[in-house]
């Protein structure tokens, strides 16, 4: 399937994709985001795609994850700026503040401890997938285990670091 085939699948599933974006919290921006998705499939020529609808779903999901990440970072910067100066400002610094450096170090220590608690294989699988960015199936092959074992290990590792982060944020 080439990109014109992808376009056809996009058009046939336009409403589904729009609903998917809304279900991920796109709100009023859903139409704009759908348009962005359309632009992306046109400007990024693609190789043969085994299952085009999955491909479009994934692109939409990534688009929403990117958007939430950007919003969250902006909120965080604003919050830190407000805390540091006692008032909001447009003049934001991208440089890490001393406080942010301390927080990052504390989080790194927490993540390390949390990973140590889940066992060696789960910790290594987490690193391979999340730090080295290796796809889950490839990780499974590397470790000689099934994909569901990789999923199970990732659930364990994610759970441990999320719990650590929540305890930290509450403290």
């Amino acid at each position, binding site marked *: 399937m080439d990109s014109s085939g992808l376009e056809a699948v996009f058009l046939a599933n336009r409403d589904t994709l729009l609903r998917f974006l809304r279900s991920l919290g796109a709100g009023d921006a859903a139409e704009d985001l759908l348009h962005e998705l359309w632009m992306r499939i046109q400007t990024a020529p693609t190789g043969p795609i085994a299952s085009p609808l999955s491909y479009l779903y994934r692109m939409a999901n990534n688009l929403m994850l990117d958007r939430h990440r950007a919003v969250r970072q902006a909120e965080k910067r604003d919050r830190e700026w407000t805390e540091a100066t006692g008032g909001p400002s447009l003049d934001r610094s991208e440089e890490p503040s001393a406080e942010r450096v301390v927080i990052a170090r504390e989080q*790194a220590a*927490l993540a390390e401890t949390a990973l140590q608690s889940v066992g060696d294989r789960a910790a290594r699988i987490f690193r391979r997938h999340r730090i080295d960015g290796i796809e889950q199936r490839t990780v499974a092959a590397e470790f000689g285990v099934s994909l569901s074992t990789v999923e199970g290990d990732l659930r364990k590792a*994610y759970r441990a670091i999320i719990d650590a982060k929540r305890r930290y944020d509450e403290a």
Partner: protein
Amino acid sequence: MAEHDDIDAQTLDWVVRTGSDAFDDWPAFHAWLEADPRHAAAYHAMSADIEEMAASVPAESVAPVVVPMPKRRWPVWTGGAIAASLAFFVGYEAMETRAHPYAVETAAGAMRTVQLADGSSIAMGGATRLMLDRDDPRIATLERGEAMFVVRHDDRDPFEVSVGGARLVDVGTAFDVKHVRGETRVAVSEGAVDYNPGRDGIRLVKGQGLLVRDGKPTVTAVDVASVGSWRDSVLAYEGATLAEVADDLSRALGIDLRADPTVAKRPFSGSIATAKLASDPRLAGPLLGVAIRKRGGHWVMSSRS
């Protein structure tokens, strides 16, 4: 509380599953999101939390997992035990064939060509490390350095290179990949390569290259004739920084050459024949428009005068 924990557990499951490129049960995920508006918020919050924590984990200095070949110890056989144990060994062999990654590494100043079982070849530059797999000649991971892949194409089983967390999938190809200082560069001299199919989905064709800096891919034009020319001891550049040139020369010559901050960002276009530089790196100075001096145990490029 119980309901809250329920959502939390379901969210975790979806975060894990949608994190795989192989995931295809999107309609079920969609239905879960639509079932309760809290689900989307939980999904995004958890994804972001994991990302933030993962980003804080320092990269490990030790080499990545290498599954070792287990030692085969042959027991002392006694008569009928062979037949009795046969079934056991069939199972054992099957387990052995899953994945056998191994590393191939070159020292700075060295070059090496690896011939793969499928007829493909990989030329490795200096200070380069590749992970290959004995049982799957169609995958390679470039951990650092530079390598030129000349790949025998197979539509049903495309050759795949992992680099800097991204995937390159060949579409009938010769291409060069470089991964140094956190940046990835790709240059295609024949055929085409797909960068991160399924996510970024960028197809690079002959004469195109890609620069990935801070996770952002930018498509560039490259001179086909100079792709992989380092194999003939010629480094070719079009608007590269001197910092990058210094890095390449270090790997090609087996020396430690650095660009000092006053010249590191200066652009350079042109070709450098490295053969004669091994004996005296200072010879590259006039071509690069810098002075090269020995300082302590390494060489430094700096402003002339």
